[in-house]
C-alpha cells in the first residue's frame, strides 16, 4: 500500500472539523471519527456580565448566524424578567428573523452545500464551489444571489443596527420601532425573496431531482439514519423558527415529546467523549446508547430535515405545497435521508420569505409601542429559537441585579453532533473499499456532514481557537496513508 501523504483542501464548512478514517487489513473502513478540535469559553465568561448584554455578547459566538444567538438571548431575557413584549415588538423580531433565514439559507445552498449537487458530488474539486454553481446556472442568477443577500442584509441592519452582531433586542421588546418607509423596504425585500425562493426550488428540481444518479445518492442507505427529530412548532404543529413548543418525533414519525423550552433539562442531556471538544446531545427520555440509530437510541437530529419531520406542515401556502411534494417524492414521513436536508432547506427558505411578506404587510408592524419595561426581579430565564442549523437554547441565572451567575447554551450543531459523527462513519464505510481513496471518494464522505450545514463556530462556543478541517486515512497498522486538509 502506498504511504503517500497527499495534502488537499477541504472546504465549504463554517468553522473547523477533523475526520480520522481507520482502515482494516483489506483497506476497508474500520471506523471513521468526526472530531471537533476547538472550544471557546462563552458560558464561563458570561458570568458577571449584565444579562441585558447577553444578546450582544453571545452573538459573537458566530458571525454567520449572530441573529440567532441574539434572538435566543433576547427571548431568554423576556423569560428572565417575566415580561411580555408588545405584540408589534414580537412581530418585528420575527420579521427580522425571517429576513435573516432567507439570506442564511441562501448562503448555504449556493456557496457551501449546493455545489455538491448543482455541480455534482464527484465533479472535479476546482468546480465544486460557487463559481462552479454559477457556471452551471448562469451568471445572472449569481448576481441575483449576491443582490438578494445584500438587500436582505441591509434590511437587518436597518431594523437591528448591524447585520453582523445586531443590537436591537431588549427584555420586553426591541430598541426601535419601524417607520412606514421601513415597511415599504421590507415589503420590497420580501417580494424579491419569495421570487428568489421559488426559483431556487426550480433550480433544485431541474438540476438535482431530474438527475437520476443524484436522486439515487440522496436516497441511498449510505446517507440514511433512522433517528428521532426535533423542531419548534406552532399551535397547529407547523414549522416555526421564532417561537412555539419543541416537538420530537420518533423514527417512525410519531410524536414522542412536546415540551416548552423551559423544560429542556428534563429531556435533553449532553454526553462527553474524550476525543472531541464538542458535546453530544441526546434525549434523556431514551438514554445514551452510543453512536447508533433506531428507537432504542437517544440520538436525535435538528435543522431543516428534522424540522420538517418534527412538524405536520408549513404555515404559508407556497411552502406548504413544496412540503407536500417533498414527502410525496421521498416516500412519506419521516424522511431519514441526510442529503434531503438541501431540499428541506430551500422549502424553509421559501417559508421564511412568505412569512417575511406577511409580517411586513401586518398593520401592526409600524406600531410605536415596542417596549414593555421589565419590573420583576430577575432570577432565571430560558429562551429558544430555531437557528438555521437547528434548535438553539439559551439559559441564564442571575443575581437580583441581573448579573449572570450561570449560563448554559445548547447550540444547534451540538444537537446534531452524534448523528453527524454517525453519518461520516457510515458514508466512509460505504464509499471507501479496498483502500481506494481519491478526492471524489473523500468528497462523498464530506457531503455527509456538509448536508447538516454544521457550524463549529457555534458548536464550540465553549475556548477561542480554531483548527483546520483535516481528513486522515490510516491503514490497519495505523500508518498514516493520506492527509487532506484545509488550513
Amino acid at each position: 500500500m502506498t504511504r503517500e501523504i497527499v495534502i488537499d483542501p477541504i472546504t465549504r464548512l463554517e468553522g473547523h472539523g477533523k475526520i480520522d478514517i481507520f482502515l482494516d487489513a483489506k483497506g476497508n473502513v474500520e471506523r471513521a471519527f468526526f472530531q471537533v478540535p476547538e472550544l471557546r469559553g462563552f458560558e464561563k465568561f458570561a458570568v458577571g456580565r449584565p444579562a441585558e448584554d447577553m444578546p450582544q455578547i453571545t452573538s459573537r459566538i458566530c458571525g454567520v448566524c449572530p441573529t440567532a444567538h441574539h434572538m435566543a438571548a433576547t427571548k431568554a431575557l423576556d423569560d428572565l424578567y417575566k415580561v411580555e413584549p408588545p405584540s408589534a415588538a414580537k412581530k418585528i423580531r420575527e420579521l427580522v428573523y425571517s429576513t435573516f433565514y432567507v439570506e442564511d439559507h441562501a448562503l448555504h445552498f449556493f456557496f457551501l452545500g449546493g455545489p455538491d449537487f448543482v455541480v455534482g458530488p464527484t465533479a472535479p474539486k476546482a468546480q465544486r464551489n460557487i463559481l462552479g454553481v454559477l457556471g452551471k446556472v448562469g451568471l445572472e442568477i449569481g448576481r441575483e444571489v449576491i443582490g438578494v443577500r445584500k438587500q436582505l442584509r441591509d434590511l437587518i441592519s436597518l431594523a437591528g443596527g448591524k447585520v453582523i452582531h445586531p443590537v436591537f433586542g431588549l427584555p420586553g421588546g426591541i430598541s426601535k420601532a419601524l417607520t412606514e418607509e421601513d415597511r415599504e423596504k421590507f415589503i420590497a425585500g420580501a417580494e424579491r425573496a419569495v421570487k428568489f425562493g421559488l426559483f431556487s426550488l426550480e433550480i433544485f428540481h431541474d438540476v438535482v431531482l431530474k438527475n437520476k444518479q443524484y436522486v439515487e445518492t440522496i436516497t441511498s442507505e449510505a446517507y440514511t439514519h433512522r433517528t428521532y427529530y426535533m423542531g419548534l412548532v406552532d399551535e397547529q404543529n407547523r414549522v416555526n423558527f421564532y417561537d412555539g413548543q419543541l416537538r420530537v418525533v420518533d423514527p417512525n414519525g410519531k410524536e414522542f415529546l412536546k415540551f416548552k423550552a423551559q423544560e429542556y433539562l428534563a429531556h435533553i442531556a449532553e454526553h462527553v467523549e474524550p476525543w472531541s471538544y464538542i458535546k453530544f446531545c441526546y434525549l434523556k427520555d431514551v438514554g445514551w446508547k452510543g453512536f447508533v440509530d433506531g428507537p432504542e437510541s437517544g440520538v436525535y437530529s435538528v435543522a431543516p430535515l428534522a424540522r420538517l419531520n418534527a412538524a405536520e406542515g408549513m404555515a404559508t401556502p407556497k411552502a406548504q405545497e413544496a412540503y407536500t411534494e417533498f414527502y410525496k417524492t421521498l416516500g412519506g414521513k419521516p424522511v431519514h435521508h441526510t442529503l434531503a436536508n438541501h431540499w428541506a432547506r430551500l422549502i424553509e427558505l421559501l417559508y421564511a420569505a412568505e412569512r417575511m411578506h406577511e409580517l411586513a404587510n401586518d398593520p401592526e408592524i409600524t406600531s410605536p409601542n415596542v417596549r414593555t419595561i421589565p419590573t420583576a426581579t430577575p432570577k432565571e430565564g430560558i429562551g429558544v429559537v430555531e437557528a438555521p442549523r437547528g434548535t438553539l437554547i439559551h439559559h441564564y441565572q442571575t443575581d437580583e441585579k441581573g448579573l449572570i451567575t450561570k449560563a448554559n447554551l445548547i447550540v444547534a450543531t451540538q444537537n446534531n453532533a452524534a448523528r453527524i459523527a454517525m453519518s461520516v462513519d457510515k458514508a466512509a464505510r460505504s464509499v471507501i473499499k479496498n483502500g481506494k481513496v481519491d478526492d471524489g471518494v473523500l468528497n462523498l464522505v464530506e457531503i455527509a456532514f456538509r448536508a447538516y450545514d454544521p457550524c463549529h463556530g457555534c458548536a464550540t462556543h465553549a475556548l477561542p481557537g480554531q483548527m483546520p478541517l483535516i481528513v486522515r486515512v490510516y491503514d490497519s497498522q495505523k500508518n498514516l496513508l493520506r492527509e487532506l486538509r484545509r488550513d
Partner: protein
Amino acid sequence: MSKPKVGFYWCASCGGCEEAVVDLAEDILKVVEAVDIVFWPVALDFKRSDVEALRDGELAACFVNGAIRTSEQEEMAELLRRKSQLLIAFGSCSHLGGVPGLANLWDRQAIFDYVYKEAPSVTNPEGVVPQEQTKLGSNGYTLTLPSFRDSVRTLDQTVEVDYYLPGCPPPVKLIVNAVTAILENKLPPKGTVLAPDKALCEECPRKLTKPDKLALKELKRPHQTLIDPEKCLLAQGLLCLGPATRSGCGAPCVSANMPCTGCLGPTSRVKDYGAKALSAIASLIDSEDEREIAALMEQIVDPVGTFYRYSLPASLLHRRIRNLSSSSAKPAKANSPDEVW
C-alpha cells in the same frame, strides 16, 4: 506586470469578519480585478502548503482576523508575517482581543470544568474530559486534539503588525478605504489604525443634541428606560462609549437606539481603551461629593465587561492574574444551592 497578491486568514474568530468581506458584495469583484487573492480558506481552495511555497514577502498584504489562542494560530501568524509585506490586523479580536478575550478572566481549567462537568445539561458520571490524545479500544487508534494556551492574545502580541482595521466587524467602508490605500500606495505611517482618528461623537447622528457640558446624575441600563430615539444617549443617562471610541462606523448602534459599546477601540492618543473610557465617563459625573460619586459608579454593574468588552487582552491588565481553579473561580453567589445547578 502581475497583480499584487493578497491573503485573508482567520484565527480565533466567529466568522463575522469573513462575512464582512463577503458584504463588500459587488465591490468584491472590483477587488478581485485589482489583486490576486491567493489564500482565503473560507471561500477558496488554496492551502497552507501554497502559502509555504511563496517567497518571503511575496504577499503584498495579508488580512488576519481573530485572536490568538493555540500554537497552530501562532504558527500561521508567523508564517503569514514572513510571507507578507504588509500584515493587517483585521477586526476587534485581532486588533484588541475582542469579546472572546473576556475569557482572560478565567483559565483553561475553569472553562473545562464548567463545560464538561458542571453545566446542568451534562451527564458525565465518569468525569470524562477531552484529551489531547485518546487511545480507543483494543485496536489502539490514537485520536489527537490540539492544546490551548491559558490566555487569549492579540495579533501584535504574537507578531509584528503593520496596520489595523478596527471594529466588530470592521465597517465595509473602512475595508474599501484600506484596500484602496494599499493599491494606490497611499498608506499612512506604519502602526496606524485605518479609521478616522476622532471620537464617535463627532459623526454621531445625535451630535446636535449633545449638551455642551454633559452632567451625569444617574446611569440607567438600556432595559430599564424608554430610550428617546433622537436625543444624545449620555444626556439620557445611558452609558454610551462614543466619547472614548474611534469613529468610522457611522454609529449604527446609536441609529438602532442603543449605546455604543466601543468595538472600534480608542483613538491614537490612548494606550488603554478601558481606562480611557472609564475616565471619560467619570469626568462627566455631576458631583463633588465622594459618596454621591461612589453611588453613581455603583450603577456601572460590570466595569470590566463594560469598559474592556473588546480589549482586555490588549489592555495593561491583559488577564486576571490570580490562578483561578474551578472551585475558587466561582463567584460567591453561585455557591448557594439552587433548583437547577
